[in-house]
């Protein structure tokens, strides 16, 4: 046995459970969801087999063929063909198939056989196949394919025991001479022949139950109904935003009260003469970072909804329902899921545009993804909505705040579609977007564990940001807002003499036409790093400014200091403004040039300014103060 670890690669059609297997084998928590195209990167992990072999395993994007049509499929192709830079060909290819739906993977298996690597076919999701009464003659299948075959249940403990055993057996023989790759890109005739061969093998080794499972079809009869389907989609989004406001309230109040108490406690505990430290902790850290952390419950609720829908299998259906509308705006059929992921955060959304084959269509999708309402906008929106929109009920049951939130999301979607349509009209008029072709997976019962892991990962990322980006920005702001200190005998709040005020006042003329005061100007600059920073910065600036409201929560302070026109203008600003450095960096990386990063920044900034200008002036003209 060599000491070098053996390399395994997970290859298969999309949504067959490769990432679930990867997580089960390596103990990782990579993203798993019930739609095709979740994984768009190569991920590496390691584990030790029962016989003590150390193994490195690669999780790869799903693909229907080795053709490499889109950037994600190219990764898979290059890895298995040994073309990927810095990555040797895998010692063993684990070909993962969905046992309930073998057709497309088996054709891929026939294609993969040509690369001449040792291979093991894993029939995953065998639990579902068994429950449905599908019987698979493993011996026959193995014989027909000329490959070892095993079954697995990636999502169950012990579900990969057999797979591990077979891996050990195969690994013991892996040193045997390996044939060179015979792979050449298949022609259409080859593909058809391979599919027919796959179908023949399936007919010979798989027995379907007399009564097929029709549950997915029955659910779809409602969910994809021409009328009810769209109504249900709208209802789901609507309930989601109502929930964000109604369910999160108690938890938010608890958090916000705890932070005030903590601030007060620090105030009381620190001895006289420690004023500077006390101000730093109370105004900088607690009023700043604390004002962002308060929004954790809402982030969790939004993700709970998104993760449930993803695991259930609804995302592909939503793409189906929205296809004509998206196509009308000049978007590629597969743009929907990346855009939907951008509701969480534009960064994974932009990454997942890798499933789009046409570079132009992919670029359009990347450019508009930051307009989708990401979760970092939630603190900003919620803060302003809670301060300015009364929590009354419309028609007795609709929470008005939730309704406004829903409207802001709708505005984000509408503007994204409009930008796409405009871009298509002016830039790429001759270019017809590529069609929509997507596998609709069977529904699955959402798995509690994976939902919990998903929420935990998001919450962790949120708190991590609060503790790093936001905290460091707060230190900066606190410093700028506290120094230089006011001269002796000066009038008004000390902050008026600080650097922050100087910067804010210098920028104010630029922002006055859209209704922003100097405090907002100060908050927007560090807010370029991340959107939530603005909330924290406002918290710090107003809390250092002090006055009789200093002890109140930031929301109440804003309600007293801003006009409604200013608040509306800032809300609209946040629909468009490119206030996220990481998103811009990802755009640069994924498009391979700084040009599109600059384009995104400029167009979003311009849209934000114009839209806020119109909103502010319209609001004033209507007499809203």
């Amino acid at each position, binding site marked *: 046995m060599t000491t070098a670890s053996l390399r395994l690669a997970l290859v298969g059609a999309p949504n067959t459970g490769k990432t679930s297997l990867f997580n089960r084998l390596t103990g990782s928590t990579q993203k798993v969801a019930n739609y095709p195209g979740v994984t768009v990167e190569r991920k590496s992990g390691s584990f030790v087999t029962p016989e003590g072999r150390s193994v490195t395993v690669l999780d790869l994007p799903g693909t*229907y*063929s080795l*053709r490499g*049509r889109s950037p994600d499929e190219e990764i898979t192709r290059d890895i298995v063909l040994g073309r990927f830079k810095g990555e040797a060909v895998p010692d063993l290819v684990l070909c993962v198939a969905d046992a*309930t*739906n*073998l*057709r*497309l993977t088996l*054709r891929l298996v026939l294609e993969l056989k040509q690369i001449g690597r040792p291979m093991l076919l894993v029939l995953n999701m065998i639990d579902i196949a068994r429950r449905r009464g599908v019987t698979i003659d493993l011996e026959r299948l193995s014989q027909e394919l000329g490959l070892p075959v095993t079954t697995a249940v990636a999502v169950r403990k012990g579900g990969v025991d057999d797979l591990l055993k077979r891996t050990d057996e195969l690994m013991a023989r892996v040193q045997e001479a390996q044939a060179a790759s015979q792979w050449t890109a298949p022609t*259409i005739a080859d*593909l*058809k022949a391979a*599919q*027919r061969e796959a*179908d023949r093998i399936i007919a010979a080794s798989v027995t379907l139950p007399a009564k097929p499972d029709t549950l*997915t*079809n029955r659910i*779809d*009869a409602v969910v*994809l*109904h*021409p*009328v009810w*389907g*769209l109504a249900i989609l709208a209802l789901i989004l609507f309930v989601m935003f109502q929930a964000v406001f109604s369910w999160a309230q108690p938890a938010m109040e608890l958090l916000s009260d705890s932070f005030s108490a903590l601030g007060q406690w620090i105030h009381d505990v620190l001895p006289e003469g420690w004023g500077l430290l006390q101000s730093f902790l109370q105004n900088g850290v607690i009023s700043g970072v604390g004002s962002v952390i308060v929004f954790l419950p809402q982030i969790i609720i939004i993700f709970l909804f998104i993760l449930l829908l993803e695991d259930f299998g609804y995302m*592909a259906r939503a*793409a*189906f*329902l929205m*296809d*004509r*509308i998206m*196509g009308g705006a000049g978007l590629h*059929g597969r743009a929907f899921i990346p855009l939907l992921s951008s509701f969480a955060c534009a960064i994974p959304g932009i990454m997942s545009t890798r499933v789009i084959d046409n570079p132009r269509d992919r670029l359009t999708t990347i450019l508009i993804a930051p307009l989708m309402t990401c979760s970092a906008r939630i603190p900003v929106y919620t803060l302003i909505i809670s301060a300015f929109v009364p929590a009354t009920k419309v028609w007795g049951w609709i929470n008005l705040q939730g309704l406004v939130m829903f409207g802001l999301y709708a505005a984000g979607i509408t503007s994204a579609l409009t930008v796409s349509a405009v871009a298509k009209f002016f830039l790429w008029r001759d270019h*017809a*977007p*590529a*069609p*929509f*072709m*997507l*596998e*609709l997976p*069977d529904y699955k019962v959402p798995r509690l564990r994976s939902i919990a892991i998903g929420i935990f990962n998001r919450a962790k990322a949120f708190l991590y940001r609060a503790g790093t980006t936001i905290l460091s920005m707060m230190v900066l702001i606190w410093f700028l807002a506290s120094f230089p200190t006011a001269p002796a005998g000066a009038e008004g709040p000390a902050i008026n003499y600080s650097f922050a005020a100087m910067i804010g006042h210098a920028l104010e003329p630029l922002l006055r036409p859209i209704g922003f005061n100097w405090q907002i100007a100060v908050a927007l600059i560090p807010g370029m790093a991340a959107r939530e920073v603005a909330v924290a910065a406002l918290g710090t600036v107003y809390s250092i400014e002090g006055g009789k409201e200093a002890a109140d929560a930031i929301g109440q302070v804003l309600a007293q200091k801003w006009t409604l026109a200013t608040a509306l203008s800032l809300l609209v600003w946040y629909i468009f403004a490119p206030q996220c450095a990481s998103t811009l960096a990802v755009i640069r990386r994924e498009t391979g040039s700084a040009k599109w990063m600059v384009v995104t920044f400029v167009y979003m900034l311009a849209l934000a300014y114009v839209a806020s200008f119109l909103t502010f002036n319209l609001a004033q003209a209507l007499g809203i103060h």
Partner: protein
Amino acid sequence: MTSDPNNSQDIRLGHADRGFVGKITRLDALVTGSSLSPQELEQRLVEMGFVEGARVEILHEGTIRRDPIAVRVDSTTIALRRSEAMAVIVE
């Protein structure tokens, strides 16, 4: 299998209604409204399992102009637009 292009039994899947059940007789990507080249369209359809002899059924259709459609192809369900489904000849 019918190969006569003028066979009156031939229907393009893109024209079929919801509930249609049939068998693929051949692919003909030359005259569709798709933005893809015939070669590319045919290849994609084959990759998604649309090959001669496969059983197809139109399960669902979209709201606007009954487009896109969800098609059961043997054991898989594929959503696609009618303009691409035009390349699939069924009987």
